[in-house]
């Protein structure tokens, strides 16, 4: 939008103001009858929505903790960041398609929280090891976290495979969100120092402390809907039970440590995910008991070559998700948004 066209729009608004019965966009600062007038207290400066990026990690100790390798720490930040990013995108795909408006808004809110967490973790990964950021043309204004989100191929994503599958029906979405949020809440609680020593990485500890508050709501939301569906109609119970069985195939991967996680856990930076199983099982047990269900008895999904999502080995669903997600950014590497 050029300054010229903005000027034109302003002129148009002024003209409409003097034309009773017209349908011009209301301008709160020029319309004393506006329902917005009281809200803004005559502060016309209110309308100035910023688009610049700021640094949410400023003010935190950016040092890499002793005993941690930069490559491992960057990989770990990508793991936790990609979990959030991919889960967020799958939840955002529900926008306008959820069973009702309140659920639509809820899933979008959860997606937004996770996107915020992802952004901070991807920024941290890029700071710790700039080598993980894809190269872009000289002069590209794309910030590092966007380069990581929009310019990596699927083989460079380190998310667990649980989060990447297609949305399925609402029962599947709720079952997956329940397992994911129960696991992520246990993970963030540990990094934040609630259930053991906090991460020696100040950035991870701070991101986790904020995330704990958010994911607490996500898990409550998923757990309540899970029980509602399980105790609802035979069809809703069938769907949410099937959804849980499907998600459960990717459960073992959540508790299997990557070598980078083990090395960082030894340095007090990361969590060995195997140590989270008891806390996750306790929360899920509470939900299953209220639902009148037993944990599914299903074999884990196979891993090609025995390699998990943490190593960049994914189901084909991830590349199918990334193609539309990344298409616009890849077509305009010099774009300003």
């Amino acid at each position: 939008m050029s300054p010229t066209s903005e000027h034109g729009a302003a002129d148009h608004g002024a003209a409409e103001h003097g034309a009773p019965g017209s349908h011009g966009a209301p301008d709160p600062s020029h319309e004393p009858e506006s329902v917005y007038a009281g809200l803004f207290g005559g502060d016309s400066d209110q309308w100035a929505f910023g688009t610049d990026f700021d640094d949410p990690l400023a003010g935190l100790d950016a040092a890499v903790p002793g005993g941690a390798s930069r490559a491992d720490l960057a990989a770990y930040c990508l793991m936790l960041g990609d979990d959030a990013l991919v889960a967020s995108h799958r939840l955002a795909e529900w926008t306008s398609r959820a069973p009702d408006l309140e659920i639509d808004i809820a899933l979008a809110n959860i997606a937004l929280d996770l996107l915020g967490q992802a952004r901070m973790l991807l920024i941290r990964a890029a700071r710790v090891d700039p080598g993980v950021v894809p190269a872009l043309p000289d002069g590209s204004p794309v910030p590092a976290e966007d380069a990581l989100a929009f310019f990596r191929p699927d083989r460079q994503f380190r998310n667990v495979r649980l989060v990447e599958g297609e949305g399925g029906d609402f029962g599947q979405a709720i079952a997956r969100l329940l397992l994911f949020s129960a696991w992520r809440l246990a993970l963030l609680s540990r990094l934040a120092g609630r259930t053991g020593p906090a991460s020696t990485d100040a950035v991870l500890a701070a991101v986790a402390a904020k995330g704990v508050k958010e994911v607490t709501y996500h898990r409550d939301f998923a757990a309540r809907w899970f029980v509602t569906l399980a105790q609802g109609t035979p069809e809703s119970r069938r769907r949410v039970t099937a959804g849980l069985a499907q998600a459960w195939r990717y459960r073992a991967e959540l508790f299997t440590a990557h070598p980078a996680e083990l090395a960082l856990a030894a340095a007090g930076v990361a969590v060995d995910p195997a140590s989270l199983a008891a806390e996750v099982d306790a929360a899920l047990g509470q939900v299953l008991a209220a639902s009148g269900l037993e944990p599914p008895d299903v074999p884990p999904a196979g891993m090609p070559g025995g390699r998990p999502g943490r190593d960049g080995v994914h189901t084909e669903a991830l590349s199918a998700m990334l193609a539309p997600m990344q298409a616009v950014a890849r077509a305009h590497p010099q774009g300003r948004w």
Partner: protein
Amino acid sequence: MSGREVSQEAGTAWAVAAAVRDPELPMLTLADLGVLRRVEEGDPTAGDEAPGPGATFHGPAPGPGPARGDDAANDGTAGGSAGGERPPVTVVLTPTYSGCPALATMRDDVVRRLRAAGYRDVRVRVELAPPWSSDWISERGRRALAAAGISPPALAARARSGQSGPVPLTLTRAPGTGPGQAGESLACPRCGSRSVSLLSQFGATACQSLWRCDHCQDPFTHMKEI
């Protein structure tokens, strides 16, 4: 911290920043919401802990260069771009939720208001830790929310999950009690009835949930406890 913290008095840079309003909840100022952590005066690049390039948002420098900080510059006279030289200021904000999109607007508004008040060198720093809590919303802010028909958050949000140990799962909500500390009740902001039902834990913004009053049947928004 690289600058000298500014006292929370009228006529200071703190007062200017504190009066900026939340773009999504315009009945609240940034101070009411508790996202304004502090304001520092003095050259932020002079200290030992000077942030690196890109660590702060720094608007384009107008005029011949930043004014130096000294006591005489902070004479408390009301703002106006024709006013005297003002020291560089750094405003520290904290986000409510990790993905809250209002933060960039708050930052731009802070910069513009301080510039208008004669502060030419204005920086905004975003700090994550400690994480924001709805407990930080001021008494004045709670009254402003209620007056605008938004149910303010219960106090002592921390009592829900405590500071340590696994976060308890909340499968059901006891009738008549708010989501905060046990015994604190949530009431309809219109008729005052305590007989209310949760419609959704998530509302029009990240910080809100949706409720319905069982007495007057009106839906209303409640600010979530975190």
